């Protein structure tokens, strides 16, 4: 039982990492109806810029952070202006395909700027079981249940970061003026326009926020796996999360991430051996797919009503 719990908790925490990436997709989809396949490439771009600025330009960490944030915002705004603005009112599938093109372009651009090397990314977060971290800090670990001792500190901090990010986004959406405008746009473009919300500004802001989320995801994933080209495949991990949670729901991204993370780890441990392992590359997809057959709009997605 405790082994099961360990696996489950590990899975849930890994799922948070998926949610982190999925969030970026949801933000843009909600506000502009674009399924931004390039989010993974943006994560890669952000992480590579962050380490590249330190390695090649000799920036200290905080300067690199600001620098990559600015670059992400520029990238986001430019994408919106150059790529998506001319395609307003095109069928969603065209918009989707254009973001596949954008994926390739951003991947190429990132490597053109910073080279193809694999960089380590050091954030100073310990990557070890939490019991060891606590002991190192001189704390007594006797009070911690055994199940929790095995949790990886890094995963825990990633979860905290994700939680903070979601909370910050929620506050931003609920309380600020811009946030309210964003929600209005997400609800109905035309109605938002008619009450005087500047659509273009809002879209620019959304893309900037998505850039920021990509940066956070890039830092966490980069610190985890090193900054390398494989980072773009993180997006592919986030897609089942999205279809499970629903494309247009922030809570969906979080809950979906948790479910997919937990299912994936459990399947790997309990079902994997029967198939000779390696099932994690497709298991999430098949699980999400089966779920979709029951509920085509995902867990929290908005139900679509068709009219002829």
């Amino acid at each position, binding site marked *: 039982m405790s082994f099961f719990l360990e696996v489950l908790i590990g899975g849930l925490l890994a799922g948070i990492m998926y949610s982190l990436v999925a969030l970026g997709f949801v933000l843009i989809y909600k506000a502009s109806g674009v*399924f931004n396949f390039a989010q993974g490439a943006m994560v890669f771009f952000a992480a590579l810029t962050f380490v590249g600025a330190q390695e090649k330009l000799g920036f200290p960490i905080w300067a690199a952070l600001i620098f990559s944030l600015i670059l992400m915002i520029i990238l986001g705004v430019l994408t919106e202006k150059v*790529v998506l603005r*001319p*395609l307003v009112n*095109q069928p*969603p*599938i*065209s918009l*989707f*395909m*254009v973001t*596949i*093109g*954008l*994926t*390739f*372009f*951003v*991947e*190429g*651009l990132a*490597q*053109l700027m910073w*080279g*193809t090397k694999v960089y380590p990314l050091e954030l100073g977060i310990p990557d070890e079981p939490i019991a060891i971290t606590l002991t190192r800090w001189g704390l007594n670990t006797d009070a911690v249940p055994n199940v929790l001792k095995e949790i990886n500190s890094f995963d825990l901090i990633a979860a905290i970061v994700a939680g903070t990010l979601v909370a910050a986004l929620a506050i931003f959406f609920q309380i600020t003026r811009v946030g309210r405008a964003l929600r209005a746009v997400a609800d109905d473009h035309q109605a938002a326009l008619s009450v005087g919300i500047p659509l273009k500004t809002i879209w620019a802001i959304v893309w900037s926020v998505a850039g920021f989320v990509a940066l956070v995801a890039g830092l966490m994933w980069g610190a985890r796996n090193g900054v390398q080209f494989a980072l773009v495949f993180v997006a*592919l991990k986030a*897609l*089942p999360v*999205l*279809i499970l949670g629903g*494309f247009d729901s922030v809570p969906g991204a979080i809950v979906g991430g948790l479910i997919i993370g937990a299912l994936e780890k459990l399947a790997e441990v309990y079902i994997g051996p029967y*198939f*000779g392992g*390696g*099932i994690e*590359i*497709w298991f999430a*997809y*098949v699980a*999400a*797919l089966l779920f*979709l*057959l029951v509920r*085509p709009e*995902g867990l929290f997605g908005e139900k679509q009503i*068709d*009219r*002829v």
Partner: protein
Amino acid sequence: MFYREAGQFKKSYKEDQAILPILQDKIGVVVILLIAFVAIPILASDYWLTAILIPFLVFSLAALGLNLLTGYAGQLSLGTAAFMAVGAFAAYNFELRLPYMPALVSFVLAGLTTAIVGIAFGIPSLRIRGFYLAVATLAAQFFIPWLLVKVGWFTNYSSSGVITTQPIEILGFVFDSPAKRYFLVLSIVAFLALVAKNLVRSNLGRAWMAVRDMDVAAEVIGIKIMRTKLIAFGVSSFYCGVAGALYAYAYLGSVEPDGFNLDLSFRILFMIIIGGIGSIMGSFLGAAFITLLPIFLDIVINEGAEILNLKLAAGVTSIMQLLVFGGLIIFFLIVEPLGLARLWQIAKEKLRLWPFPH
């Protein structure tokens, strides 16, 4: 001036329904076929045949398959490469288990096997649409290569998962030279292209387009959505399966499941975007473009570096490929969403009027 249908009257329904209604078109197609079937096998070098023309034809067929599904029936698929893998491995197994079967029969059976697999993965399309479906087809893209690696039977227990294809043999005739293989691929592709052209003009093709444009409306006017969508998946997968078999047998000679990755799927998707979504000819134009572009880029970058006396860092070519591919996709979708096929149409219009402005 050069392309004018004036004076060519259609005197029967048959003439009105012809694929090539105008004399100039007929001449053009005959010339192209003569070049493809006669001139190229005689003139082209082995390098051209094996490195450019055969892959071009194979990719055209795969693009054609995807175009039937995405361009005509409106179901976006990101799993093309996986279906090609099914075709390649099915053909391999048919040849392996039934050695006396002519290659052509194996290819057809491989196509049919792929069609069945494609229909299975098309079932979710009955419930889900758009991006959800695109993401769902990724399930096929990840699941199928994994299955092919894991189940040793498919690769005849080859330890590395790589299969080496048997020689292509039809009734004792062995296609052993590039020119012969080219000839075989060309014949298959030409035949299947003709079938596709007629298919999309048929009742079924119109049903596909109705579903693409609005499936609820299509249902209301009495089109059976389920049947139409599943047939689209089946036919498209058949084409992709045959393309996969040819990819393995006529082009590479030995393939592994991991070679049929997401990148290949994207490449084929790019072919139909650039060539023209919902156009048979577009599939060919796009395949030609995407096959030739990397070679062209390679030459330009290397020559350019030589002229400018630059030393190229490793991987610059692949980076440039990413940039150019991505940039072109964005460019085409914004400027000419209907792709090269549409440009050709515009050119025809211009030729009709030239040298007069109206």
